[in-house]
């Protein structure tokens, strides 16, 4: 066992290659300069984005979490780009560099096994790449100013990036050992990375065009762009207005992303991408182990083939086990027809953060005009448990939501700011609450509904004004603050649930960095629509 471990490159004690590589790589100004350049680049891009975002927020209503999510996605893609740009340059010279420097023979003459040399090279090269990657994480914290990205999302994106980095790193090592010349190895690595990234998308488009139908999504699995998009997907939606800014990006996005509601594959795309990268890395690593041998590089011995096959089998077993363990959430949920509806929500993992189904306190309207009693709709529902909502119910629901936002969820803690003006937006927008709320077409409220909403809110210490869109409300060009200390309330559509409750996204906005949004749950209790909680992600800035 000990011998076997020694031969396979796993040995206690520090790998001399790592010591040597770190000594020479981190010495002198080179590493320092590279790190500085990478950080300046990341910082510069982020700063530019921030400026763009702030500029945008002056003219259109872009909600803070959307900005946060957009910037997070941009940052993730920047990191992906850097990984693909830096890693091959670092690893493609690892083996061939020793050959060119004529030190390979000297290494081979020592008892240091080729496997151990390879392992040392991989660890030292990856630690350098990861240093560059992790150094940018503090910069990424700018995302938290805007909110909208949960730590879980961040970790998920980071894991995908990490796996991609390792795969590209091993690819570079493989090319380095195969060609034995750094120039060729570098070129071959970059070409392969570009092919791996672009070819699946290209093929998907081609298949789509030829078949005149949606191409099968699994084609995209090898592409890092799609894998990252799938990992980011829950925190982003294609309708995010932020992404509409980048037409080119959103084009790639729309092609590259794999919505979870795809009927042909039950899981997010990255669930397939990660095992693909894992097995690719393993195969390349095993092949490289053979290639670094000084003698008979291309002759694979039977025992090596067996060991390699065994390792791959173990890996496949692990992947299969992971898939089986989580099958309850994906394949089986689909097979049982549970939540087999056009909305992705039920088959998704429980969404990202925080406050779910939290019971919210409500200020009862003190005195004032008592709302007309509403009757729970009983007239033959289309589907069991579904509710139909009449005009009165709509008005009552929106009024309750506006009241809740103005009096409780105003983000100012215990002291209600009591803004003197409330602007209510006539047109609904489903993007204002929980990002996972299904998006439906905007609806413009009719005159009667608006009047009943205004009437229901008459007791609040504010003037109620209706506006066609939040853009029409005058704002301070610098801070984005609503003029006259007003506050804008935007509603989403009413989403009737099977259990009889209604989900309503809504947001409150009073300045560029002062806004909040969530999706409320309302239930018909004692003849009145009452807020009983919220669902999904809430955002605040």
């Amino acid at each position, binding site marked *: 066992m000990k011998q076997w471990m020694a031969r396979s490159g796993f040995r206690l004690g*520090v790998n001399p290659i790592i010591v*040597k590589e770190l000594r020479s790589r981190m010495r002198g100004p080179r590493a320092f300069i590279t790190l500085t350049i990478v950080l300046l680049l990341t910082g510069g891009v982020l700063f530019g984005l921030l400026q763009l975002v702030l500029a945008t927020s002056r003219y259109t209503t872009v909600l803070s979490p959307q900005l946060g999510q957009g910037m997070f996605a941009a940052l993730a893609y920047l990191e992906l780009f850097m990984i693909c740009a830096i890693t091959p340059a670092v690893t493609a010279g690892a083996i061939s560099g*020793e050959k060119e420097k004529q*030190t390979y*023979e*000297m290494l081979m*003459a*020592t*008892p240091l096994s080729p496997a151990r040399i390879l392992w040392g090279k991989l660890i030292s090269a990856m630690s350098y790449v990861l240093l560059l990657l992790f150094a940018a994480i503090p910069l990424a914290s700018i995302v938290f100013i805007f909110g909208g990205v949960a730590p879980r999302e961040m970790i998920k994106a980071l894991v995908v990036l990490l796996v991609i980095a390792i795969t590209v790193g091993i690819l570079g090592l493989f090319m380095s050992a195969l060609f034995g010349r750094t120039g060729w190895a570098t070129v071959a690595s970059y070409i392969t990375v570009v092919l791996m990234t672009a070819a699946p998308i290209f093929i998907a488009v081609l298949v789509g065009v030829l078949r005149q139908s949606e191409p099968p999504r699994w084609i995209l699995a090898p592409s890092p762009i799609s894998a990252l998009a799938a990992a980011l997907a829950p925190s982003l939606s294609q309708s995010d207005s932020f992404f509409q800014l980048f037409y080119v990006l959103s084009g790639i996005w729309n092609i590259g992303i794999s919505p979870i509601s795809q009927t042909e594959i039950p899981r997010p795309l990255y669930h397939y991408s990660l095992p693909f990268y894992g097995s690719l890395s393993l195969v390349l690593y095993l092949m490289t182990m053979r290639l670094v041998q000084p003698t008979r590089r291309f002759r694979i011995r039977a025992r090596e083939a067996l060991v390699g096959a065994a390792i791959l089998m173990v890996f496949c077993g692990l992947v299969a086990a992971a898939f089986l363990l989580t099958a309850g959430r994906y394949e089986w949920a689909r097979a049982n027809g549970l939540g087999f509806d056009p909305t992705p929500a039920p088959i998704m993992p429980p969404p990202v953060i925080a406050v779910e189904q939290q019971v919210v306190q409500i200020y009862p309207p003190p005195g004032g005009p008592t709302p007309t009693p509403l009757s729970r709709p009983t007239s033959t529902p289309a589907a069991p448990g579904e509710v139909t909502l009449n005009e009165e119910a709509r008005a009552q629901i929106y009024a309750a939501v506006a009241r809740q936002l103005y009096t409780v969820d105003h983000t100012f803690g215990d002291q209600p700011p009591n803004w003197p003006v409330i602007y209510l937006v006539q047109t609904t927008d489903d993007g204002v609450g929980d990002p996972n709320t299904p998006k439906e077409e905007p609806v413009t409220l009719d005159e009667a509904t608006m009047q009943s909403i205004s009437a229901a809110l008459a007791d609040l210490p504010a003037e109620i004004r209706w506006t066609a869109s939040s853009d029409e409300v005058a704002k301070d060009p610098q801070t984005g603050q609503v003029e006259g200390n007003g506050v804008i309330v935007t509603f989403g559509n009413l989403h009737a649930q099977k259990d009889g409750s209604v989900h309503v996204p809504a947001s409150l906005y009073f300045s560029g960095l002062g806004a909040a949004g969530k999706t409320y749950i309302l239930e018909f209790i004692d003849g009145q629509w009452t807020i009983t909680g919220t669902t999904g992600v809430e955002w605040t800035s």
Partner: protein
Amino acid sequence: MSEATPTMAIETRNLTRQYGKLTAVQDLNLAIPKGSLFGLIGPNGAGKTTTLRMLAGLLEPTSGEIILNGNPIQQNLTILRRQIGYMPDFFGVYEDLLVWEYLDFFARCYELPARRRKVIIDELLDLVDLTEKRDAYVHTLSRGMRQRLCLAHAMVHDPQVLLLDEPASGLDPRARVEMRELLRELGAMGKTVVLSSHILSELAELCDSIGIIERGRLVASGRLDLIRAQLQEGRRLHIHLLSDAAEAEAILRNQPGVGRIEADPVNGASGVKLDVDFSGDENAVADLLAALVSRGTRVVSFSENRTGLEEVFLRLTKGEVA
């Protein structure tokens, strides 16, 4: 060639290496005794480097076997690697490493414990006379210093056998002398050193045995003096006489083994000088002198012009070396 020394450091049996159709080394049978300084001589492309790389376990022989200290090398290469120190003819240095780190790296490759590494690095630097350069960057060293550093790297694990490929190539005369001193020192330490060169004078001064290799074949091998004797088709004797040349010639003609005789007057001195081609061992040479003296010939000087290795080499390779 076939010296029956029981303790051989390296033996090869019908060692052959082919690169495609090209045969680099063919049926090489070497026997290198322990503790000897063995020189492998041959023109460029004769197969010296191929041979050394096979001995170092870096190249698999097409056929034949290598026996290191009685063990076939192919079987447990990693263990035998610890007994061999190899210095390639073209070697690299790692940029951005200090001299001591360079040696430390190789010492780590041989898994020496930290304390031992520290001691051995200082000892080696002292041996190769680089103590002052301990904390200098490797790439600032001169060619000769690098060569010595490379030699030191091959010795971090205190191997019994050192394989040095062209250790003196590219060195200026002074550095060459230093390298020679160093190798002598190693010989004195009882290490078996195998070195290659295409410059013969280098090896002649240094080695106690040589192997002459040409076009992948071993032409001659064995102790230097024995090879000389084996190759000695004739000695050239210089005799300075005061007496009559014709008389002395007559005496010499009567002795066995005497070939061509040339008589020249000696410049700036009286008497005559004879150059005599003679074949025979040292006893025969002594007999020849005794015969001359007993007949009353007055001999001022009697000396032998030993054939240089260069001449042996040229003779062996039949002048085919360019």
